[in-house]
């Protein structure tokens, strides 16, 4: 019986390996210079949370994606969930992600969900934004405050972002013009509207971006106009939405109470910290939330 690894057989195997190397190495040298993974679907990075552009609160152009993205990511982290927060450039893509893709949650404002069925959604407020009334100094001077009374603006034309319920202003004798914020700012400068009522941080960001050098011509009235919530909206269709929402709420409350929330806002460059009143309001809303069981 011949040994399995005789001299001849070892020589043949060595020859075979050498031949393989001779033919394979040049093939490596001339192989296409791209990595196959560049052309494959990335299943690992399935987005869990989708937001849409709403600068300066959240935007792909802002480092860290803006204060909202920072808060939401941090709350999820405290809740023990690492999320990939994707900022979509269009609202419709955020709604598409919520309804058609396996997206655990989305981030938006109340108005973003107009016409969207809320049956399987849990709305969790996570931030309060402050709106102010603005005047344009060259047209109306810097004086006149509304002092918290709408009747002090009687007879004026007020610009508001639409769609919105305008009855409260009209009841006070104020004419309301609805439009998009950039157009309203231009109308304020042109004198077509007397006052602009809008989210303060967003308005000031837009003035800086679109009308550099004119920042001081815009006067924000001292008393805030109203507050509005921003929401993380959980999708209960996926089966894990309720428990995720519950953990998110717990983590958010913890951050609101221990000061972590303020630190995140501050680090994200937000101009506006939560007032004690706003913090209380937010916690009350969180306490009153009824999240359905799985």
């Amino acid at each position, binding site marked *: 019986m011949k040994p399995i690894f005789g001299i001849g057989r070892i020589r043949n195997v060595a020859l075979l390996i050498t031949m393989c190397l001779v033919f394979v190495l040049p093939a490596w040298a001339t192989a*296409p*210079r*791209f990595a196959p993974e*560049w*052309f494959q*679907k*990335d299943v690992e*990075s399935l987005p869990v949370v989708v937001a849409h*552009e709403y600068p300066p609160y959240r935007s*792909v*152009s802002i480092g860290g994606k803006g204060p909202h993205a920072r808060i939401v990511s941090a709350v999820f982290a405290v809740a023990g969930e690492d999320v990939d927060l*994707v*900022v*979509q*450039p*269009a*609202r*419709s*893509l955020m709604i*598409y992600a919520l*309804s*058609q*893709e396996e997206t655990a949650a989305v981030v938006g404002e109340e108005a973003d969900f107009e016409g969207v069925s809320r049956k399987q959604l849990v709305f969790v407020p996570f931030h309060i934004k402050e709106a102010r009334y603005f005047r344009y100094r060259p047209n109306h001077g810097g004086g006149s405050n509304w002092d918290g009374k709408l009747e002090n603006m009687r007879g004026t034309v007020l610009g508001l972002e639409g769609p919105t319920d305008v009855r409260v202003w009209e009841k006070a004798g104020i004419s309301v013009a609805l439009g998009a914020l950039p157009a309203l700012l231009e109308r304020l400068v042109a004198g077509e509207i007397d006052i602009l009522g809008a989210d303060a941080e967003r308005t000031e960001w837009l003035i800086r*971006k*679109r009308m550099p050098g004119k920042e001081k011509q815009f006067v924000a009235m001292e008393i805030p106009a109203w507050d509005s919530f921003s929401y993380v909206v959980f999708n209960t269709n996926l089966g894990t939405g309720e428990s995720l929402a519950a953990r998110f709420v717990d983590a958010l409350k913890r951050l609101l109470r221990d000061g972590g929330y303020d630190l995140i806002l501050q680090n994200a460059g937000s101009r506006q910290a939560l007032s004690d009143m706003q913090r209380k309001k937010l916690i009350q809303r969180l306490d009153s939330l009824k999240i359905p069981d799985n």
Partner: protein
Amino acid sequence: MKEWAIILIAAILFIPALQGSVLADRRDLTVTPEEVGLSSERLANVERLMNRHIEEKKLAGGVVLIARKGKIAYFKAFGRSDTDRPMNKDTLFRIASMTKPITSVAVMQLYERGYILLTDPVSKYIPEFKAPKVLVMFPKGSVPPYELVPAKREITIRDLLNHTSGLTYRFLADWFPDPIHLQMAEFYKEAGVSDGLDEPEGTVGETVVKLARLPLAFHPGEAWEYSNSGDVLGYLVEVVTGMTLKEYMDTYLFKPMGMHDTYFYPPAARQKDISALWTTDWKGNLEKVTGPMSMGHLRFSPNYPEGGVYFSGGSGLLSTAHDYFQFCQMMLNKGEIDGKRILSRKTVELMTATNQIGEFDSYLIHGKGWKFGLGFSIQMDRNHEIDSGGPGVFEWAGLHSTRFSVDPAEDRITIFLHQHEPFFHHVPLWERILAISTSAIAD
């Protein structure tokens, strides 16, 4: 003599000498048509044609430049550049998409120097392009109206250069009002993605990262679709080099190519020399565009104020006929101009003499018989309706009605610059000018 007086006299003597030297350079290139094998008599038809169109108020004015064998044989300004100014040879034009070939050259310089590969996925440099999705429309009335499916592969730099990336333009919804283009236009509008012609705010990088997250109109490599990929390429240059596109082009293109009058935002002293932008119905109704305006899905503005920072590689440049001639001549010379090597011969061949789009046609302003290289549309045969003189001619155009054509076989360049919207009205006029330019060849 007082010091100030010496300086004054020196300035009086020296400044005209400097100006004279610039003009002398240009005069050196000007020859009679016959010296370069063109017929003066035949070229005179350009004047007749242009003057007739101006008399009929189809257009306000324009500049035509025809060059052969490296010399300018025909260079004339016609009509008015504004309500109160005649057109002249140094008038500045918003060359819009004629920016794209220049941006393509910038990208190919990076390729030549080993900074990038054409097969690189764009996401390697602009991560927002990772894992793109493609729009698929459902039949009318469906809810939801569309779905988004993962792209079969990522966009490569080559896809951007030859317009097979899947990106599109918002204004194309007016040219091709089918469900895909209309929905894409909605996405672009909602996301605030500018076509680059409407005094966009912020930087082009901000637009590009938004564009990167929007769905594609088709899978990369599966169709030829004109798009603002030029903006992505311009931003890519910024990411790879760490310079703004303006800094890069000034340093590595305009200065060595002698394009001293090409800008993203002309300096204050040259603002008055920018041609007015007009709307025309080609029936005698000409109106000057005085501010930002919309025409269907297209938004544009005549204003390019000094100090702007939105450097659009797809449509942002203003230039003169002479400067663009320098660029065309560099391409015709296979990458060299005035003793300066801008690209290698092999790279120019890759861009202008090699079909990069397989079976697709470069259909937007050409059609059957035209293919696309890297930044340029290329005529492949003379069997189809659009003939610019023969196989090998490469061209492109700008949306505000600017055109160029380079004919390597005949060593000929034809440039026609004017500023009228909408674009399509002037096409028969351009084709006639090209036919005259071609038939003027007399050797």
